[in-house]
């Protein structure tokens, strides 16, 4: 399959999702630009994870279309969908590492499935990914249960990057990390985008992350995307949820911190 990387990596048109009578999304339109880091925010239960699962192909849309690099998902063959999946990586909230395998084996899984490289080379590439996400070399032979929360996220990220994806989905990457670990993770995401030319869509509630690394922010309220724009413009949006979200004490603290960092 030929993929035109000049087209928008992800585009959603008129999406409808529902579970029984409960409509989660209705006429939702959404676009992720090439090479950008897009933050997705929305209240609990607003359907952020459902949207991400739809984009990952874990859930079929109940209406509307999803496009990757200009190609409609529903019109693709099984084989084309598979090769599309290979250019997408995802970091689930808890890391979702296979607990019966070491970190290195976890990272080798996508390589084993989709390439026919010699095993020693796969092992070396896995070790390189471990190095790239900032894990110590001895983490390679540890099991996920031996890792701390932050290390598990890094290991999950290394597995997501195993096949050098073009498109990376992150579900609350900094949730559960301490502020120092969280900002180190933010920096890591920036570095990896630079090195690997990634397009990143992340669900996050971490205001610091939104302020420091997201190029644009999308707000999911009332079953659709109310606005997608740079953060200062999003904050001017009149929707009461947006005003409350960015007008709260936590947000003000993050804005002030961001200004301070900018000045110095």
């Amino acid at each position: 399959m030929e993929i035109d990387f000049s087209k928008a990596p992800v585009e959603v048109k008129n999406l409808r999702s529902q579970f029984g009578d409960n409509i989660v999304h209705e006429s939702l339109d959404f676009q992720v630009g090439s090479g950008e880091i897009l933050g997705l925010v929305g209240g609990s239960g607003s359907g952020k994870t459902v949207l991400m699962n739809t984009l990952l192909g874990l859930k079929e849309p109940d209406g509307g279309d999803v496009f990757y690099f200009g190609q409609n998902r529903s019109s693709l063959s099984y084989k084309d969908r598979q090769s599309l999946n290979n250019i997408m990586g995802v970091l689930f909230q808890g890391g979702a590492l296979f607990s019966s395998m070491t970190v290195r084996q976890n990272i080798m899984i996508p390589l084993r499935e989709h390439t026919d490289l010699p095993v020693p080379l796969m092992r070396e590439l896995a070790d390189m990914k471990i190095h790239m996400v900032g894990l110590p070399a001895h983490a390679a032979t540890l099991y996920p249960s031996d890792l701390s929360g932050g290390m598990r996220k890094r290991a999950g990220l290394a597995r997501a990057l195993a096949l050098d994806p073009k498109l990376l989905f992150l579900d609350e990457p900094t949730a559960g990390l301490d502020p120092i670990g969280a900002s180190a993770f933010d920096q890591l995401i920036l570095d990896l985008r630079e090195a690997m030319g990634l397009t990143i869509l992340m669900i996050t509630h971490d205001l610091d992350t939104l302020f420091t690394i997201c190029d644009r922010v999308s707000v999911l309220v009332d079953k659709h995307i109310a606005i997608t724009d740079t953060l200062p413009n999003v904050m001017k949006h009149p929707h009461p949820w947006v005003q409350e979200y960015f007008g709260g004490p936590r947000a003000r603290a993050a804005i002030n911190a961001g200004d301070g960092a900018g000045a110095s």
Partner: protein
Amino acid sequence: MSAEAITDSMVVPDFQMRVEDRRLYLTVLGPWTLATIKSLDARLAKDLNIEDYQDVSYDFESLTDLDTAGAYILARAIRCTPEECYPFHLTGNSQGQKILMREAADASMGRAPTEARQWFDVLVRMGEASERFLKETIDNLAFLGVFFMVMIRQMLTPHKIRWKSVVAHIEDVGLNAAPIIMTLSFFIGAVIAYMGANMLAANNLQFMMPELVGFAVLREFAVVVMAVILAGRSDSAFTAQIGAMKMRQEIDAMQVIGMDRYEALVIPRALACIISAPILTFLAMISGILGGVIVTWIAVEGISPRFFMERFSEMVTLQHFWVGMAKAPVFGLIIAVIGCRQGLAVTGSVESLGKRTTQSVVQALFAVIFVDALFAVFFYQIGV
């Protein structure tokens, strides 16, 4: 990464190298990605091996695409002494490619640990297994001790026992297991009768069929079949239930809230097993003897069910029934305690849940048969 990259992806990746003044000039052509490097890896390594140089200068002018895998292969050209690596230079590269190359160079320097296997691993594993067996036995006995402490405490305040939970477990452990246990026991009774029919008939002792079936089923088979099914069905379920709770920190939450894990989880299950086991054994005895009666009726001439039952009530005394029944609550207790202990021993990983469940069933079966043997010695000594 760009539109051109795709149209050029048909081009075969390649490289050219020359050495001048102990510096390697490596010109890289085409796309160097995960999909294309397979053919290059061995060739590049071989060519690099025969060259003698220190620094590397890469020319990326004709490189169309580079990912981490390609960068990693290229970084192999960088020569290192034990202390440090010689520098490398890039021309015609983008900023991203420079970062990738630096990452790759760093990654190829630090060697990650490897797992090695030794010839004496077999002995080590045997030793570890023996040690584990000993520790498990001690832990099981310790758990049993704690269990009895809590049990006595609860017996003094019976209203504190979670009777609702006990009844719910009895439904699952006892009632729901009854059909399968009765079916299996029926078959066991039938098998004993078939085997005995040939042997006894050869010696003209057909009239002793009731004793054979009665002794075997009442004393041993009914209660052992019950214990085997209980171990396979309920013991594994206990371990899985409690283990899953442990994995999701539910047990920790209970502890903090002030619920005793023994009172809330172990005692109700143990009581359910202790109460259910004799009832199930009784049902197993009935269906086992029924199986014997039917087979005897079919296979042995001259012994009608009526004759069978008359001789049965005459020859098979009540003490054989009690020998079987006495073992049932003990087996029930063993099974519940082992199931609960293994469940509480589960740690964070999915693998440990599976391991503990397996171990739980194996230990329960082992303990049941072992204790059954002890009972046999005991009953022989007291002469019943």
